[in-house]
């Protein structure tokens, strides 16, 4: 297998952009019509994801130490879609057919062999990772909504009970699927540390024009069932650290920080924790009452609400989270956890770096805006 030949060929093929993925899926569904129902009606995001995953794989095809973990994760991630080992050769055939079609006269038997070898190798890694994963946990969990509370017309806090225990670390997220929007998995962070009764809390903000969040905020009801994928995410508490802690959450970016806060509270001697909770309007501070109740009985916890787009009066600080955080004290000796929109997260991290916090003491999670 000649890695450079694969890269050159892929660069040539990838010039056709979206057409490549379009051809691939059409070819796949024509050869295997039953695979179509594993995908959503609208396929544009799916095609983007395919191309970016392929691009990443090809760029690292000669760097197995970096590539293998990524491909193993892909294999595990695909379990919740119902992908099984027998689907891999079908996908491989369509992939090679697509590459051949777009290569035109530059296609050769040699290339066909290279691609087939590479695909077989990577699909073996994916299948093995999926099988290993299957030994320890299900492909997905079914969970029932047991509580649902609208905090504002576009914000909801809900509690679900999975049909089996769902082990995870505070700060992590999962992808979920609602029956009204099949094949559209969306990521949400657990807003609590694991509980003995296995229940999980989620904070959901309605995204205008989004397909899934309006269902979760407005129409899902107690008793409804949803599907949960496995936990993912690396914004987890550094348990070896003795330092004080800074938690900074914008809107529903609060959720994973609340889970981390509960984990800290369970420590015998919790460090000092400052929790900054920001929103554009004061009614966007949907969980502030609850947080302030916690802080009132907790000497080590300080909660600072911030509102950016109007004057909240005495209820909160006025300004963006990076500004408010910068205005308050010195954070060089703290560990920081930041979660919110991509813009808020990046701006806050920049500010923390300016304030003298080093990169390795900042952990972040961004929620998607769409």
């Amino acid at each position, binding site marked *: 297998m000649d890695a450079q030949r694969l890269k050159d060929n892929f660069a040539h093929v990838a010039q056709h952009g979206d057409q490549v993925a379009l051809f691939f899926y*059409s070819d796949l569904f024509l050869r295997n019509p039953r695979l179509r129902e594993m995908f959503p009606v609208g*396929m544009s995001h799916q095609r983007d994801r395919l191309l970016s995953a392929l691009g990443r794989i090809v760029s690292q095809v000669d760097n197995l130490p970096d590539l293998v973990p990524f491909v193993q994760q892909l294999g595990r991630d695909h379990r919740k879609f119902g992908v099984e080992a027998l689907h891999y050769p079908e996908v491989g055939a369509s992939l090679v057919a697509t590459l051949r079609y777009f290569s035109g006269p530059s296609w050769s038997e040699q290339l066909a062999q290279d691609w087939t070898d590479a695909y077989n190798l990577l699909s073996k890694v994916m299948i093995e990772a999926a099988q290993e994963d299957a030994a320890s946990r299900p492909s997905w969990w079914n969970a029932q909504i047991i509580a649902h509370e609208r905090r504002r017309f576009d914000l909801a806090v809900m509690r679900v009970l999975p049909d089996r225990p769902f082990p995870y670390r505070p700060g992590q997220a999962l992808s979920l699927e609602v*029956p009204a929007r099949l094949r559209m998995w969306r990521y949400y962070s657990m807003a609590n540390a694991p509980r003995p009764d296995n229940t999980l809390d989620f904070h959901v903000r309605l995204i205008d024009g989004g397909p899934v969040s309006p269902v979760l905020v407005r129409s899902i009801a107690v008793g409804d069932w949803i599907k949960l994928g496995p936990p993912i995410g690396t914004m987890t508490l550094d348990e070896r650290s003795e330092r004080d802690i800074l938690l900074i959450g914008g809107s529903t970016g609060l959720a994973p920080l609340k889970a981390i806060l509960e984990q800290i509270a369970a420590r015998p001697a919790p460090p000092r924790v400052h929790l900054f909770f920001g929103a554009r309007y004061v009614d966007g501070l949907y969980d502030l009452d609850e947080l302030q109740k916690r802080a009132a009985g907790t000497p080590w916890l300080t909660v600072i609400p911030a509102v950016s787009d109007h004057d909240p009066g005495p209820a909160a600080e006025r300004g963006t989270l990076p500004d408010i955080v910068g205005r308050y004290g010195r954070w060089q000796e703290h560990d920081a956890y930041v979660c919110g929109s991509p813009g808020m997260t990046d701006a806050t991290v920049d500010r923390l770096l300016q304030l003298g916090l080093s990169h390795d003491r900042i952990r972040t999670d961004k929620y998607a805006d769409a």
Partner: protein
Amino acid sequence: MTSPDIHGAQRLTPAELQSVNFQRAPLGRRGFDEDQVRAFLRQVEQELVRVLNEKAGLENEVARLRERIAGSPPGVSTVKPEDAHIQAVRILSNAQQTADQYVADAQRYSREITELARRGRDEILSDAQSRAVLVLEEAHRQASSAAEAVAPSTEPMSGDERRDLEREIAYLRTFSDVYRTHLRSYLEALLRNVEEWEKSERDSVSDTRASLPRMD
């Protein structure tokens, strides 16, 4: 063609049967009756024309059936299976792109409508808020001017002054009642609006949900 002998490689055509010439048998040797031979050749020629026509018809039929299997439009005589597959891929890709376009349009439309509703809500709320503030300020002003009217008079009020003051108080009560009613009906109308929006949205979503299969 003048020779009756037919080479294996060459295909015999009806025209050749018409123009075939036999050499006469040498004198003293016997031959077939020439008329009989010609009549037979005509018969063979007609049979050959019929066979060739039937063959062409069958070929057309085969091509037509092949086209139907491949799903290609008429006019293309024969389609190789791999070309047919590429054509099918193209057709499916076009269909998918159309579907993607519809989904994107629907999502954009829904986003625009929601954004508009959100802006409308914010405007209604801030409007109601500033009205409430105005009503309160006005009531406050009236109250303090009434209080000022009362305060300076340390001397006992005359009957006229008392009547004026009572009238003023009665007026302020009515004023406050009227504004309260206004404000209440205004807010109730707002709430009804919001409830109707929510109800119609819930209905539309639960319809969708009812029509979808339940997962286990």
